[in-house]
C-alpha cells in the first residue's frame, strides 16, 4: 500500500502545473502537497544553478529558471547525492529551442560541468616526467597515455573559454569586454593541478592537438605528429612540463 501511495505522490511532484494541486487519490491537503512539490522543483533547479553559474549569467536568471525547470522535469536525478546531477545539462541546452541562436552556450556549460567533475574526481597521481624520460625512443613512440581522471578537454568552434572567463563574476554586463565570436575555435583544459584547486586553461593549437589525440587513445608518437602539424614550432619538452604541472595526464604503467 505504501508503495502505491508513494508512486501516486511522486508522479505529481515534478509535473503538477497548477500550484497547490494534489493527486485526487491521495486525499491530502493541496496546500501542503504544493509545498513539497515546490521544494522538490526549486531544490533540484538550485542544484543545476550551482553547477552552471556562468551559463545562468549568459542567459539571465529568468531564462535560466525556465530552462533548468524543464531540465529537472525531464531529467530528474537517479541518486540521492547530487554531485553527479546535471551531467547531461549541456546536451539539454544544445537542443533547447529558445537558446538555439546561442551556439556557444552548450560549450560554456560543458566547461562548467568539467569543473564540477574535476573538483570531485578521486585523487590520483599525475604523469611523472622522469618515468617518461627512462623510456627508449621506440617505447615512447608507442606509449598510450590517458588524461588524468580529473582532467577534461572541451573543444568548441566558438571562443568558449574567453566567454567563460569574462563572465566569472556577477556584474554590470556593459562593463564586460565584448568577445568577438570570429576568434573562432578554442580548446579548454579543465584539471585539478593541486589538491584543493580546479584549473581552467586555454590550450594553444599544438597542446590541443597533442592532448586530444592522446585522449582518443592514439599513441604518443601520433599525438606529437598531430601537435607539430598544428604548430610547426611545437616544443614538446617544454610543453610537456606545463601539461604535467596542470596535471593533464595520468601516470602510466610501462
Amino acid at each position: 500500500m505504501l508503495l502505491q501511495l508513494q508512486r501516486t505522490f511522486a508522479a505529481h511532484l515534478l509535473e503538477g502545473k497548477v500550484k497547490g494541486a494534489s493527486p485526487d487519490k491521495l486525499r491530502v491537503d493541496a496546500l501542503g502537497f504544493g509545498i513539497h512539490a515546490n521544494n522538490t522543483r526549486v531544490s533540484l533547479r538550485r542544484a543545476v544553478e550551482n553547477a552552471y553559474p556562468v551559463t545562468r549569467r549568459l542567459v539571465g536568471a529568468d531564462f535560466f529558471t525556465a530552462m533548468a525547470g524543464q531540465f529537472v522535469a525531464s531529467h530528474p536525478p537517479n541518486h540521492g547525492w547530487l554531485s553527479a546531477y546535471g551531467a547531461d545539462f549541456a546536451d539539454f541546452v544544445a537542443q533547447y529551442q529558445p537558446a538555439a541562436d546561442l551556439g556557444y552556450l552548450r560549450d560554456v556549460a560543458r566547461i562548467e560541468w568539467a569543473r564540477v567533475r574535476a573538483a570531485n574526481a578521486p585523487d590520483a597521481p599525475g604523469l611523472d616526467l622522469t618515468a617518461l624520460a627512462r623510456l627508449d625512443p621506440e617505447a615512447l613512440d608507442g606509449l598510450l597515455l590517458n588524461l588524468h581522471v580529473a582532467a577534461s578537454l572541451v573543444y568548441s568552434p566558438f571562443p568558449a573559454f574567453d566567454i567563460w572567463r569574462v563572465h566569472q563574476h556577477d556584474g554590470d554586463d556593459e562593463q564586460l569586454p565584448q568577445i568577438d565570436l570570429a576568434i573562432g575555435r578554442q580548446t579548454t583544459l579543465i584539471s585539478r593541478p593541486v589538491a584543493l584547486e580546479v584549473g581552467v586553461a586555454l590550450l594553444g593549437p599544438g597542446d590541443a592537438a597533442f592532448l586530444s589525440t592522446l585522449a582518443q587513445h592514439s599513441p604518443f608518437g601520433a599525438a606529437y605528429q598531430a601537435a607539430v602539424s598544428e604548430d610547426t614550432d611545437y616544443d614538446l619538452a617544454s610543453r610537456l612540463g606545463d601539461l604535467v604541472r596542470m596535471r593533464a595526464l595520468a601516470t602510466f604503467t610501462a
Partner: protein
Amino acid sequence: MESNHKNQRAVHERVRGLTIMGLENSVGIGLRTSHCERFLDQNTPPPVIWLEVLAENYFDRGGIRHKMLSMIAERYPISVHGVALSLGSPEGLDSEHLERLASLVADVSPCLVSEHLAWSRSGEVYYNELLPLPLTDETLDIVSANIDRTQDRLGRTILVENPSGYLQFEQSTMSEVTFLTRLTERTGCGLLLDVNNLFISGFNLGIDTAEWLSMVPADVIGEIHLAGHEHGGTADQPLLIDTHGAAVTEEVWALYAAALNRLGPRPTMIEWDSDVPSLEVLLEEAARAQRIMDRVLVA
C-alpha cells in the same frame, strides 16, 4: 524482549560515545562550504566544539570537498547528517547510497550519525525532498527494516529526525511521537529532536508540542537541531515552512528551553544551510543555545 535489549545497548552506546567526545553538553554548527577555510585556519580556529555535515555532500571519495572535510575532521569532532537515504522507502534502501554513507562514516569516524523519518525516492527517481509518510504499522515495519539494515552496515546506531509536517494522511493510525517511540523500541535507534520541525508541525498540523515532549522517552533523544523557518501558505491557511535560511525564532528558543527542561542537556546543532550568513552569525546563535543549556545544567 529482543527490542528492549537493543534499546538498552543503544542508549549505552550513545551515552558512552558522547561522553568520550565531551559533547554531551555542547552546541555545534553545520559546516558550510563558504566557511571551510575558516576551520582550517591554524592561528584563529573558530570557537565551536563540533561540526555537522550533510552526508551526501561528501559522497565522492576523493576530490576537493572530501579532502577539506578530512582535514577539518582532524581538528573537530564531526556529526554526519544524512538527508537522502530514504528510510521510508518500501522498495528498500539504495545499496550504493548505503555503501557511500558507510565509506564516509569510516573516513571521518563521526560522533553522531543521523537520518530522517521520510522518503525521497520512488522507482528510479530521487526527489531531493523529505517527503511525508502515513504513520501506520506497515510504515513502521518498512522504516524499521531499513534502519536495521543501515545500523547493521554501519555497525552503530543512528538517530532519526522528526519531520516538519505540511500535510497528514487519513490512513495514519498513530501519532508521530508514538510512531517514533515504537521505532526506537523496534530498532534500538535514537531520535534527533528538531525543535524547529516540532514547532512547525505544531503550527501546521496541530500536533501538541507539549504532549509530544512529555511522551517521548527522554533517554532516546541523542541530539537536538535548531533552525529558522518562514511564513507561507495563504491568508486563509497560513503555514510555516522549514527553510534553514533564517535565525531561530523566539518561539522556537522557548520550545528548546522547554525541551531541555524536560530531557536534560543534549548536544545541540544550529542548522542554517540556505542563504548562509557569516560564520559569526552562526556562532552567535550557537552561543545563545549554549547559554540556555548552561542554565539547565545549573538548575
